[in-house]
């Protein structure tokens, strides 16, 4: 049984090594990788700027709404504090599943 497994393992190694010989593409020169890295870094940077812009825009809209409410409808503003407080407490104290944790 053990011998069979070793034989299969050996055969597998041999066959997969042959695949490498059939398909052996030339390695691109360093300039190709430098361009790839530079382009991807640029894309990541642009995406970060865009996301920060949308975040700031959303925050500004929310703050404007809250400010208008505070000036024009102070009662509603005070009522709004209740769900915000509940949400904050839940967010802080509700046990969250860690990344990679299996249920």
């Amino acid at each position: 049984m053990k011998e069979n497994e070793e034989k299969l393992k050996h055969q597998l190694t041999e066959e997969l090594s042959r695949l490498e010989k059939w398909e052996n593409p030339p390695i691109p020169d360093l300039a190709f990788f430098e361009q790839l890295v530079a382009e991807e870094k640029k894309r990541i940077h642009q995406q970060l700027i865009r996301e920060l812009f949308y975040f700031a825009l959303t925050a500004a809209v929310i703050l404007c709404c809250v400010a208008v409410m505070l000036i024009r409808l102070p009662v509603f503003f005070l009522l709004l504090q209740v769900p915000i407080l509940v949400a904050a407490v839940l967010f802080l104290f509700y046990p969250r599943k860690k990344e990679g944790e299996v249920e």
Partner: protein
Amino acid sequence: MEEKDLIKQAKKGNQNALSLLLQQNYSILFHYLLKITLNRSVTEDLVQETMLKCIQKIELYEEKAKFSSWLISIASNLYMDQIRKQKTEKKYNEQIKQARSLKWKAAASNEEWSELLDALCVLNEENRIPLILKHYYGYTYDEIGRMLKIPAGTAKSRVHNGVKFIREELEDHERKRGEA
């Protein structure tokens, strides 16, 4: 410069160091993907995707495993994601057909395509990847588990199932040859 120094530089944002790391590991990555996909065009796409993912996540690389192992881990997970997506889009059978392109290419260049490679083509990816990582690359079950984000026990049973499947396929081939 040694790989360790290149990694440190790359994590600090040095683009030349990262480019050099990718170039040094290109061949390992290409051949690994070729073995698990058995398809040249899928391999080329996944090599590109893996390198992009590596550029995005280089700061998160913890240097616990070799850099090539980290790349292999990214590539394996990207491939599994692709398979899952294709299964839901019902394009999976097309990919199985494409896997035979390597076989035709081997035949065209008078290379022998063994029954074992045939069996590997039919074996599902969930078992094929751990099997290759264990028996070709020599990773431990713990390492395979970490790379594929599965428990080590699951990795072990997948390797076992893969070996069993291949053995049965080879026996089946032999039986058919005996009958003919």
